[in-house]
C-alpha cells in the first residue's frame, strides 16, 4: 500500500485549520459553516494556498458529507413530531414557503438564470438552517420560550419539504422535462410516505435488523445501507440526498438514537469537508461582482423570514417581542442552501458564487440579529456543554 505523504500532510493541515476556525466561531457563538466556506475559498484555485493532493479526497468526501447530513436529518425526524407540526403549523409552512421562495425565484429570473437556476435560488432563500438555529436557540436559552415550538415546527416542515424539492431540482437541473420532474417528485413523495409508514409500523423490526450492540457493527450496517439506497436513488434521478433522508426516516426509536450517536462525529467530519469543497469550487474573484446582488437578496429575505416567523409565533399565542424573536431566529441560512448548490453541480459558477456570498452573509448576520432581539444571556459563552452538534 502506498501512503501519500502529500495527501496526509495537506489533509492534516486542512483539518487543523478548520478546527482553529471552528474554535474561533464558537468563541463568538457563531456557526462554523461560513468559516469552512471561507477556508475553501482561500484554499481553492486562485486562492492563497492550493491543495492539489487533497483535492480528490475532498471531492469524494463532499458527496458522503451530503449523504450523512441528510441521513442524520432523517434520523432526527419522528412521525408524531411531524404530524403535530403539520396540524398546528401548516398555514405557517405555506406562509414561509411563499414569502421566502418568491424573492429567490424573482432574483434568479432577474439575473437571467435558467429554470434550474431559478428553482435552486428559490430553494436557497426558502430553507433556513435548522442546524444553526436549533443550536442558537439552545445557546440563547430560548428553548422554553413560548415562540420556540413555532420556530421548531417551521424548521421541521421545511426539512420535510426538502424531500419533495430535491428530486424536483435534480431533474430540472439535469435539463429534464416537466413531466420527468413531476414523476421524480411523485416517486420521491411515494418513497417518503412508504418510509414513514415503514418506520411507523415496522420501524422496530428494521431497527432490530440494522442495530447491533456493537457500535462498530451498527455504524457499518447503517452506513452501508444508506450508501446503497443513496446510490439507487441517484440512479433513478431522485437524488442521493433524498435516498439518505429516507433511510433516516425509516429508522426510529432506540435504533435511531444509537445510530445518531455513532454517526454524528462522522457527519461532522464529512459535512465540514463538504462545505470546504463548495468553497473550493468557487473562484474567490467571482465573489466580488455578485456581492451587491447577494446583499440585496439577503436584506429582502431576512425581512421575509422575520414576517413568516412573526406569523408562526402569533399562531402559538406569543406576544410582539416573542414574534420578533421567532422571526429573527429563522433568518440564518446555512447547510441546506449549500446542499442545493452542491446538487446543481458544475456549470453554474455565477449562481454558486451568489449563493456562497448569500450564505456567508446570513449565516453570520442571522444569529447576530436575533441576539439583539432578546435579553442576552450573560453566561451563554462560557457554557461548556452543548447538546446540539454541528452544523
Amino acid at each position, binding site marked *: 500500500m502506498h501512503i501519500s505523504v502529500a495527501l496526509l500532510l495537506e489533509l492534516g493541515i486542512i483539518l487543523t485549520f478548520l478546527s482553529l476556525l471552528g474554535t474561533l466561531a464558537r468563541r463568538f457563538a457563531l456557526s462554523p459553516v461560513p468559516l469552512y466556506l471561507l477556508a475553501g475559498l482561500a484554499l481553492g484555485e486562485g486562492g492563497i494556498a492550493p491543495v492539489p493532493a487533497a483535492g480528490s479526497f475532498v471531492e469524494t468526501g463532499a458527496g458522503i458529507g451530503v449523504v450523512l447530513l441528510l441521513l442524520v436529518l432523517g434520523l*432526527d*425526524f419522528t412521525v*408524531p*413530531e*411531524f404530524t*403535530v*407540526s403539520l396540524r398546528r403549523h401548516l398555514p405557517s409552512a405555506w406562509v414561509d414557503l411563499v414569502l421566502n421562495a418568491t424573492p429567490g425565484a424573482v432574483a434568479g429570473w432577474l439575473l437571467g438564470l435558467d429554470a434550474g437556476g431559478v428553482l435552486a435560488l428559490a430553494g436557497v432563500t426558502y430553507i433556513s438552517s*435548522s442546524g444553526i438555529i*436549533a443550536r442558537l436557540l*439552545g445557546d440563547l*436559552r*430560548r*428553548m*422554553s*420560550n*413560548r*415562540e*420556540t*415550538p413555532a420556530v*421548531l*415546527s417551521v*424548521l*421541521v416542515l421545511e426539512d420535510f419539504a426538502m424531500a419533495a424539492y430535491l428530486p424536483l431540482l435534480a431533474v430540472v437541473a439535469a435539463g429534464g422535462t416537466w413531466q420527468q420532474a413531476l414523476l421524480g417528485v411523485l416517486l420521491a413523495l411515494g418513497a417518503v410516505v412508504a418510509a414513514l409508514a415503514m418506520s411507523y409500523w415496522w420501524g*422496530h423490526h428494521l*431497527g*432490530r435488523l440494522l*442495530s447491533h*450492540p456493537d457500535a462498530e457493527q451498527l455504524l457499518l450496517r447503517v452506513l452501508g445501507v444508506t450508501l446503497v439506497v443513496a446510490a439507487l436513488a441517484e440512479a433513478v434521478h431522485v437524488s442521493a440526498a433524498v435516498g439518505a433522508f429516507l433511510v433516516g426516516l425509516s429508522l426510529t*426509536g*432506540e*435504533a435511531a*438514537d*444509537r445510530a445518531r450517536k455513532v454517526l454524528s462525529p462522522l457527519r461532522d467530519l464529512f459535512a465540514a469537508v463538504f462545505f470546504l469543497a463548495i468553497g473550493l469550487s468557487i473562484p474567490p474573484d467571482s465573489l466580488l461582482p455578485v456581492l451587491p446582488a447577494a446583499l440585496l437578496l439577503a436584506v429582502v429575505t431576512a425581512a421575509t423570514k422575520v414576517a413568516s416567523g412573526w406569523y408562526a409565533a402569533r399562531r402559538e399565542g*406569543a*406576544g410582539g*417581542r*416573542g414574534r420578533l*424573536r421567532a422571526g429573527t431566529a429563522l433568518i440564518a441560512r446555512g447547510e441546506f442552501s449549500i446542499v442545493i448548490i452542491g446538487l446543481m453541480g458544475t456549470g453554474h459558477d455565477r449562481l454558486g458564487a451568489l449563493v456562497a456570498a448569500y450564505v456567508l452573509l446570513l449565516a453570520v448576520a442571522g444569529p447576530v440579529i436575533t441576539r439583539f432581539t*432578546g*435579553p442576552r*444571556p450573560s453566561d451563554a459563552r462560557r*457554557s461548556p*456543554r452543548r*447538546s446540539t452538534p454541528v452544523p
Partner: protein
Amino acid sequence: MHVDVNEVLLPGVGLLYEFVNLEGDKVGVVARRSGDFELAVYGEGDPDQAQAVFRLTSEEADVLADILGAPRIAERFADLTKEVPGLSAGQVEVLAGTPYVGRPLGESRARTRTGASIVAIVRGEEVIPSPGPEKVLSAGDVLVVIGTHEGIAAVEQIVQG
C-alpha cells in the same frame, strides 16, 4: 392540590412541561432527547421569555428528583432498558371503572399473555416494587411495565379493558 401541567412538543428537541405554582410563577421544564433538562422561570415583563434558565444533565436531574422525592421509577427503568435493544419501559394507569380494579394483579395474567413484566406499582406517594400476583389493584394505580413496545401496548389493552 392539583397542578395542571401543560405539555408542548418541541420538534427535534424534546418536550416542554409548563405549570404555574401557587405563588403565580410560571415554571417551564424542557426535557431534551439527549437526556438533559432545562429549567426556566418566566419573566414579568415578557410572559413568553424564559428568565433565569439553568441546565441539568440527566445525572444532575436524578439528584434533583431524589431531593424532591418524586418517584422517577419509570425513567430509571428507561435508562436500564437502553442497555437492551428492543426492550422498553412504560407506564399503564389503572383507570376507575376498568375490569381489574379491586382484583388481584395475577388475574390479569399479563405476563403470560404479553411477555411484558409489571415491575412496580406506583400508588400515590408509595411505590410497591416487584408486586406479587396476589396484589390487589386499585383505581389510580400506575403500573410500571417492562417489555417490548408491543408487549407494553398489550398490557395497556388488558388493564384498561
